[in-house]
């Protein structure tokens, strides 16, 4: 049994629990905070934040950050910056960018990197609906999509490369529509004519009548109101969307089938993140809550209350995650993985019949026709994964000395997840999803895959024939597990190389682990009086069983041909008390591990990296927070490390410079 940095320290006394009743007092802005694993500190290098001239926080374009290797891209008001970003290893001058673009009459709203060979392709979504594709390094080209705005006139809300693809990308708009673009196709100057391709509960997918000669290839109409964020699962099999209508929808991307749904307690859902192993989805929104959904069980398993306003960003921290070796889990994983290719090919052939020769499906039937569509075209699976995951950097995985050893123990499973959230309340919350919460009710049969490979595309016929991946289904499943495990073990890296663990922590002693878990649970629930979740485990499970008796039935009902009932099935009043939207007392209500005011303006970005994490706020500041015991890695000496208990306020100059 292994034990990570987060599990090592038994004491939670260092962590400050938010008392939601603490109100009225003006809180100071924190530049450091303590968790079980140690002290996180704001990197005070002079260049770690940027001052955006002419920016007013009233403008509604959240500052977002995209990373790719040593590159960071962020938007602030009418400007887009691409900078070298060495994290804490080198001073970064965000005011001296590699590429900076100013837009007139519109704003950049979102962006996504794609890196292959030595090309860096950056997609930028704009507020009037257009999409820009550029290479910020070589600056050789710059393409515009939806230039005439005939495809969609509304704001681009999120843009994502299709995992493993060099030329397919998805664009979501505030109109509630999502388009699949192919990089080398023209957009045309007339409104596209669509025909219905597939529909289901609360969504419909159309294809362009002109077949695959122009963009978009597909148009997904999802729910009502703006699609606020989209996210591919790290295994790249699933696409999840959150909308203003309050729904999280999870689709099997290739078969275009709705796999599951969550309804917010109330209000729109604003943000989304997958767990590194693709098992859980966390969403945040206008109900001030974070909500955790289990792909396996197709139900909401927990909510978190700690924010004082809307939750703008949720992000898993794959580096602070507890991993455990579990021999039996290996068998489970294999059993389930081996089922998958069959199911998958069935679905694919089904969709092929419907679509005749739709572009991205056709790629699955033949490797030679459209090689550019190969979702695994560019390099080895692990690089693939890293390029497209927002949670892991490619460098760390590849450099990691742990990787090789981890291949000997592919059966590790994550037992406790860490994730963070930032919101309009200017606060950062860190949350822990412990084993007690993620453990399934006894006796429930597993209905979905335990461990998804980040390169699930390797099960495509095309990919199996690729030289990178073994063609045997069994072996490719095994590889899949390996890759997932790499990820898990990578999360162990900080604990095994860092000094933050107490020397007496016995990694192999199961009791240490158990103690830790219990400790966390009790600390996270102790101050909620009306919380039905207790650490009397048996009781908790009983409640789950009782309250979620509908769960299996509901998930079975997600048949796609029942669109006629979709209005009724979307009724939030009817959904309350179901696995899609449980009542407040029907699932554990988590409290944050820590909850800190870390900015003056509402926070708009949160990205976890190996040695640090990055936050951004509406004012246009980018903040780097150094993880515990990572200060010695820094070449630039920071200001003297304050003592653990010190909670100094940010220096005054952070407040200024807002025009």
């Amino acid at each position, binding site marked *: 049994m292994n034990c990570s940095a987060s599990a090592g320290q038994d004491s939670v006394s260092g962590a400050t629990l938010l008392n*939601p009743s603490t109100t009225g007092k003006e809180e100071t802005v924190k530049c450091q905070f303590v968790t079980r694993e140690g002290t996180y500190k704001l990197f005070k290098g002079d260049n770690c934040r940027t001052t955006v001239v002419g920016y007013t926080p009233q403008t509604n374009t959240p500052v977002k950050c995209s990373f790719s290797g040593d590159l960071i891209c962020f938007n602030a008001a009418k400007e887009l910056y691409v900078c070298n970003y060495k994290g804490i290893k080198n001073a970064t001058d965000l005011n001296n960018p590699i590429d900076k673009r100013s837009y007139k009459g519109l704003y950049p709203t979102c962006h996504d990197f794609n890196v292959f060979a030595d090309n860096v392709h950056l997609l930028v979504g704009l507020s009037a609906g257009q999409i820009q594709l550029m290479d910020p390094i070589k600056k050789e080209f710059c393409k515009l999509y939806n230039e005439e705005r005939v495809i969609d006139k509304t704001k681009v809300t999120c843009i994502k490369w299709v995992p493993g693809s060099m030329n397919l990308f998805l664009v979501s708009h505030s109109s509630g529509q999502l388009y699949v673009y192919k990089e080398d196709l023209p957009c045309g100057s007339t409104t596209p004519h669509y025909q219905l391709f597939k529909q289901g509960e609360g969504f419909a997918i159309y294809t362009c009548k002109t077949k695959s000669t122009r963009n978009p290839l597909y148009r997904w109409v999802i729910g009502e109101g703006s699609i606020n964020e989209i996210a591919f699962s790290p295994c790249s099999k699933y696409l999840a969307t959150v909308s203003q209508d309050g729904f999280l929808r999870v689709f099997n991307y290739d078969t275009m089938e709705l796999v599951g749904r969550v309804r917010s307690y*109330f209000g*729109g859902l604003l943000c989304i993140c997958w767990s590194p192993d693709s098992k859980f989805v966390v969403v945040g929104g206008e*109900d001030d809550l974070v909500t955790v959904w289990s792909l396996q069980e197709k139900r909401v398993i927990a909510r978190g209350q700690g924010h*004082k306003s809307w939750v703008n960003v949720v992000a898993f921290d794959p580096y602070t995650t507890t991993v455990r070796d579990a021999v039996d889990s290996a068998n489970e994983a294999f059993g389930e993985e081996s089922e998958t290719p069959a199911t998958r090919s069935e679905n694919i052939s089904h969709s092929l019949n419907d679509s005749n020769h739709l572009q991205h499906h056709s790629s699955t039937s033949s490797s030679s026709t459209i090689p550019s569509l190969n979702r695994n075209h560019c390099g080895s699976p692990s690089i693939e994964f890293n390029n497209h995951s927002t949670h892991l950097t490619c460098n760390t995985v590849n450099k990691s000395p742990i990787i090789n050893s981890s291949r000997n123990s592919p059966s590790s499973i994550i037992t406790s997840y860490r994730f963070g959230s930032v919101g309009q309340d200017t606060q950062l919350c860190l949350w822990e999803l412990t084993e007690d919460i993620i453990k399934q009710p006894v006796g429930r049969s597993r209905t979905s895959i335990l461990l998804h490979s980040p390169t699930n595309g390797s099960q495509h016929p095309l990919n199996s024939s690729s030289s990178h991946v073994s063609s045997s289904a069994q072996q490719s499943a095994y590889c899949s597990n390996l890759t997932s495990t790499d990820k898990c073990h990578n999360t162990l890296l900080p604990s095994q190389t860092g000094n933050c663990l107490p020397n007496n922590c016995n990694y192999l002693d199961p009791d240490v682990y158990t103690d830790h878990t219990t400790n966390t649970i009790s600390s996270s629930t102790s101050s909620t009086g009306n919380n039905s979740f207790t650490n009397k485990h048996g009781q908790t499970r009983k409640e789950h069983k009782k309250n979620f008796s509908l769960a299996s039935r509901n998930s079975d009902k997600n048949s796609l041909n029942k669109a006629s009932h979709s209005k009724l099935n979307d*009724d939030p*009043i*009817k959904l309350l008390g179901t696995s899609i939207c449980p009542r*407040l007392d029907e699932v554990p209500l988590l409290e944050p591990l820590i909850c800190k005011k870390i900015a003056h303006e509402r926070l708009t970005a949160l990205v976890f990296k190996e040695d640090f994490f990055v936050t951004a706020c509406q004012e246009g500041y980018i903040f780097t927070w150094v993880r515990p015991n990572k200060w010695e890695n820094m070449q630039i000496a920071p200001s003297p490390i304050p003592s653990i208990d010190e909670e100094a306020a940010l220096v005054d100059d952070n407040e200024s410079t807002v025009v």
Partner: protein
Amino acid sequence: MGGNISQLEKELNCESLTVNEHYFGLVNFGNSCYCNSVLQALYFCRPFRQKVLEYKAKNKRVSQNKETLLTCLADLYHHIATQKKKTGTVAPKKFIARLKKENVVFDNFLQQDAHEFFNYLLNTIADLLAAEKSGNQTGPTDNNGKNNSDSNRTWIQDIFQGTLTNETRCLNCESLSSKDEDFLDLSVEIQQNTSITHCLRVFSNTETLSSEHKYYCENCCSKQEAQKRMRIKKLPMILALHLKRFKYMESQNRHTKISYRVVFPLELRLFNKASNKGGDDKLYDLVAVVIHCGPGPNRGHYITIVKSFGFWLLFDDEMVEKMDVSSIEDFYGITSDTQKSSESCYILLYQARESMLSS
């Protein structure tokens, strides 16, 4: 102005709006926007408007001629609702004159507090209705054995009244006592960079009564330390939330505005229901927002945004404009602590949603 109206009408036609709805601006009679904004917000609270129009219809038949604030309001709403055109302006002259006659507070040309007016209007209507009811109920109809508070219940209570329960637990003997309190609207303390739902949740936080604030426990027959919390026992059909944006500053001897940014969702549930028993938590939809623009209670302007048939409209005295839903965020307030003036939400009206099945 005429151009503006036809522009709105054009936009409404573009929406292929076939419903019979009227969007009329109200003429300002010198700082009467506090009144106009509330009248517009209430007009678009369908249950309220419906009752006012019913009252008008009933009054016609009964030919009751005594002018009250309610008859003036009924005339005004009726006048708007029976216009041939969909858009235009109306002068609420009679209503304003009646208001000034009835209450000296409003008998001037100063800017008034819209919430004060809102509260005054609802209470006056409730009193008028209760008086009419007891006047009619002389005779055989009175023997149904209802208690006083029930017989005083009017459609104002049916629409706006909710019940708070004050729970106090004696820390000495652990006995719990609770006291119910009815409300027509909730006045909510606000904090910077929060949501209205958070501010409402804080409302219910447990408070410890100690030292000079000790609680007299009937069980212990002495003053004891106690824990108190306020929860919502009964949710109203229309939840009216008043944001406490005007704070009295002793140093300046006047009220000053708190322009904090408080976000409000288009849909909400309350976190502080006393219990989940007795039906589901109501899901509310935002139907109208009264917005205060400017630096203080006696300086500034009031406007209203309302939702009607799926789209949003902005009413600024005689002006009416269609508004994109994304513009609502302009009215959350501001994050700057130095700037006091703002266009920020002041009264929020949420209406309980009926299930799609039952409607």
